């Protein structure tokens, strides 16, 4: 009886240790937060457009086709690194990509796109970062998939890598098949 009294807490302790070990070795990334906007409509906003003289209104732009929304800035290094994949979405996969330029300088953005190519069909300007807050963005770059009903289906926070590029493509295929 006395032995049992000592063994039980030990087993319990080992169980806790094992569960910690599991969390440690599993691929869980505490910085990868789930978006609260999944399966919800695109936030409503109106702002300046980089290349056009008219206002960019989210009500008019979303809800007709599948759109990739990419929050980016020229001062953000991961944005430079992921740019080739954003180009591939537009050119190879023929997906419409809308860029939301976060707290940046218009002139620098134009130079950036001239140098690296412009994958965006349109660019909305978020000067104060308020549009990003409406989208629940916590660190750029972030990329969202919006379906043809204007509903957000996926969010990736951080740089698009080869792995994420493939993942986004498979989600895009899934969504277009459902349609």
């Amino acid at each position, binding site marked *: 009886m006395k032995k049992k*009294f000592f063994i039980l807490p030990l087993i319990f302790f080992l169980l806790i240790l094992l569960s910690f070990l599991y969390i440690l070795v599993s691929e869980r990334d*505490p*910085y990868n*937060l*789930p*978006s*609260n*906007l999944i399966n919800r409509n695109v936030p409503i906003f109106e702002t300046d457009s980089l290349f056009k003289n008219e206002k960019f209104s989210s009500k008019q732009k979303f809800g007709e086709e599948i759109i990739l929304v990419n929050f980016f800035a020229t001062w953000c290094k991961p944005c430079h690194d992921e740019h080739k994949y954003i180009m591939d979405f537009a050119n190879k996969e023929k997906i419409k990509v809308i860029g939301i330029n976060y*707290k940046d300088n218009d002139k620098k953005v134009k130079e950036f796109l001239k140098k690296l190519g412009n994958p965006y069909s349109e660019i909305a300007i978020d000067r*104060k*970062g*308020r549009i990003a*807050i*409406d*989208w*629940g963005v*916590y*660190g750029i770059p972030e990329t969202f998939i919006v379906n043809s009903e204007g509903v957000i289906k996926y969010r990736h926070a951080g740089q698009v890598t080869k792995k994420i590029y493939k993942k986004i493509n498979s989600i895009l295929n899934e969504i277009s098949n459902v349609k």
Partner: protein
Amino acid sequence: MLNKNYKLIVFLNIIVFLNLIFFSQNFLHSVEPEEIMLNKEQEVRARNISKNIRCMVCQNQSIDDSNAPLAKDLRLLIRDKIKSGHENKEIYDFLVERYGDFILLKPPLKSSTFALWFMPLVFLLIGIIVILRHNKKYINKKNN
């Protein structure tokens, strides 16, 4: 002489330590002068809300403590909302709608967080029962 110095050092250390405990909380914030609202009552409200909002970038700090640009944006947003007459609950709801419950430093009580809130109580009860039973056995043994 050495003894005297030693006492002085210990005394100073204690004072520094107490200062850290009592004053750290009050001075540990990142609100910049231009952010502060003219209306004191509104500023207190903004500060209180900011203390309950998690900085999504640094995760274990409130936006009141954090220097992250997003934390600053959220502090300004809260102040704008207060200025335009929003209630505290409306401001919390606005933020939760965009960032989820994770943005609240204190998780809300709902069915999915029951375990989080009540497991400590369950463990405490188990502990008390174990100790009581152990003591009872010990007393019985002693009496016999």
